[in-house]
């Protein structure tokens, strides 16, 4: 009875959503939205970088990104707390000993993955990519180290320091925006560099590199906690 009720409610939701989006699609396909129009047209004169999504994430809607990194930070703190109260037991012992293939492949692949991730982070404002994507790549590349049987204990204090400092610097850059232009997260370096070079777009690459560092550390933390808990 309860299940049938739930099924009915959700199929109603699905049908109404489907009707909604079909109608929307036929009425205003091939029309740019108001905000999208504004961002695309004013991006060239505001920030002077090719990737419009990056300028939305870090500048036009930068405050959301602050919230986003706060959420990642909180989740790591929460996981840390839960692990401490649960206590560690070596799940990693249950993992199979890595064979020669995994071990050798890690040695070859790991530097390439790191390099690729760093490229994605640094070129976030020029090509598809950015701090979150690159950080996720490097973080999961580090997962390979565990699979290849690296038993070294992580220095937790060091990673906590890196995490805290990178987020705090992002906030301080935002506060500098208040100091120079009286608006939080304002791009006070926007005139720097030429279109399409690495150093352009003012504070955007700096923010994205810091986010990349932070996301790397946190993904690494998450996988490490899951494997060693």
């Amino acid at each position, binding site marked *: 009875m309860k299940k049938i009720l739930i099924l009915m409610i959700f199929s109603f939701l699905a049908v109404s959503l489907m009707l909604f989006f079909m109608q*929307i699609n036929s009425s205003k396909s091939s029309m740019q939205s108001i905000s999208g129009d504004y961002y695309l047209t004013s991006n060239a004169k505001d920030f002077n970088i090719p990737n419009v999504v990056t300028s939305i994430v870090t500048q036009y809607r930068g405050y959301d990104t602050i919230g986003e990194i706060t959420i990642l930070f909180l989740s790591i703190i929460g996981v*840390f707390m839960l692990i401490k109260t649960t206590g560690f037991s070596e799940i990693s012992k249950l993992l199979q000993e890595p064979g020669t293939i995994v071990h050798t492949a890690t040695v070859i692949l790991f530097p390439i993955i790191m390099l690729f991730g760093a490229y994605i982070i640094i070129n976030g404002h020029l090509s598809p990519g950015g701090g979150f994507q690159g950080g996720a790549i490097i973080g999961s590349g580090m997962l390979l180290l565990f699979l290849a049987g690296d038993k070294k204990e992580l220095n937790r204090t060091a990673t906590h320091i890196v995490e805290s*400092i990178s987020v705090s610097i992002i906030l301080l850059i935002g506060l500098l925006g208040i100091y120079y232009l009286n608006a939080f997260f304002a791009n006070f370096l926007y005139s720097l560099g030429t279109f399409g070079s690495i150093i352009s777009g003012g504070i955007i690459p700096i923010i994205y590199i810091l986010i990349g560092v932070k996301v790397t550390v946190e993904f690494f933390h998450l996988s490490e906690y899951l494997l060693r808990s």
Partner: protein
Amino acid sequence: MINPVITIILPLLLGFLSPLLYKHIKIYFKILMISVFTFNILELIIIIPTVSSLPLQIYMGNIPAPFGIMLTFGLTGTIIALMVNFIALCIVFFKLNRNKDCDNEMVFYTVFPILIAALISLANTQDIFNIFVFLEIVTISVYILAGLKKYKKTDLSVIKFITGTSIGALLMLTGIAALYALTGSLNIIHIHSILTGYAYFNTYLFNIAVFIILTGLMVEAYMFPFNIFVTDIYAHTQTINGAIYSGLVQSIVVFVMIKLIKLFIINPMFLNIMIVIGIVTIIFSQFSAFTEKNIRRMLGFSSFAQSGLLITIVALSLKSGVHNELFSLAIMMIIIHAISKFTMFLAADRFIDENGNIINKKKAGQVSFFAFIIATLTLVGIPPFPGFYIKFRIISELLRINYPWMAVIIVISAFLEIIYLLKTARKFFVKNSTDSNEPLISILAAILPLLIIFLFSVNPAYLYRSSSEMDFKEETEISIQEINETSILNEHIEENNIEE
């Protein structure tokens, strides 16, 4: 005057630095936290005269209004932010000399300031996606705070809570996607002006989008069918979580709902849904609280009843069409309810055990007793205290705009509340031997809210003056005018009209 965004950034920075600093400079870190909250309170008090004449619009990153994220420090938002900071200060005072309360103290001092920053931001933001992100910060903080001290059923209650809030968040995100597809904007005021200004928007599409957002918010605010998920988190976690959740989080979620009423007001159907759900919530919660033995769960149910009451009142106020003060009275009620409810939780912490029963032998201080009784009397609305003044004015306004049945419901629920809350208060007198062995600093947590309550009860004119200054419609209209002045927007709309 300093940019009021600083009141959000400072606690956030404090939270981020906590894993770095807390281990080394414990006591100084706590002092730092107290000074940050005190600074916030002073800053917000300083901006009140400016804000009460014209809401302060803050554009994040210097992006013009509907496109960037805009925070509006209006009178309402500022007062709610002030309340949040005040409660946060009291909770820090309370927490100062209780080191054994949670298994990992650093986590508390990291999560708590971030939660406060998110709440202040939620009270003032005007961007619907930003509301979603910061609501997620708030709920994730609650997940962590709830798990800090492990009792027998803590994990299960948190898992239930995560289930409920995740459903709410997913629905809300779907609704935001639908609303964005419909209007192409994320700013609440802008969406409101688009939907009211241009008739070619298909109404049934709009109804579906807003209905999904409303459902998501109802789940997040735990209106009637969903509050079964969340009462466990009151019952099976620390009492201080009850203070945080009921005093801070629930008030702000209700306030966000009141803020989003700019969307719901377009179709009276949504107001009707809010009224029906609100009334069912009031009745269900008050009767559940009446039969409940566990004190924490009882106080939790009482909070749900208050949220239902507030939502109903606001919906009625906007539905009636007659000019009335119900909206501003509802805001004042949020404040009085939050202050008295968190005082009750903190005071009750001294004399209940982990199952929510009253302990016989534990020493309970006289100040805690006194605080609990005064807060109870304020909440139920006994004459000298400000709760009475607000309830009286609400009832008389309801009678004036011809909703006598709602006045009857409020009176009945107030009677139920009086019975079960005073029954609890009586038990303390019977069972406990009083002992004034409390450390001075944690007494501050009980005395500060009492001072506020006394201030309001000596001179309700404070309440009245600030409530009559807050007018929902004026605040909205000013902001809409400012946004419409943005030339780019107007050009775009003209272009679109030509295309059509």
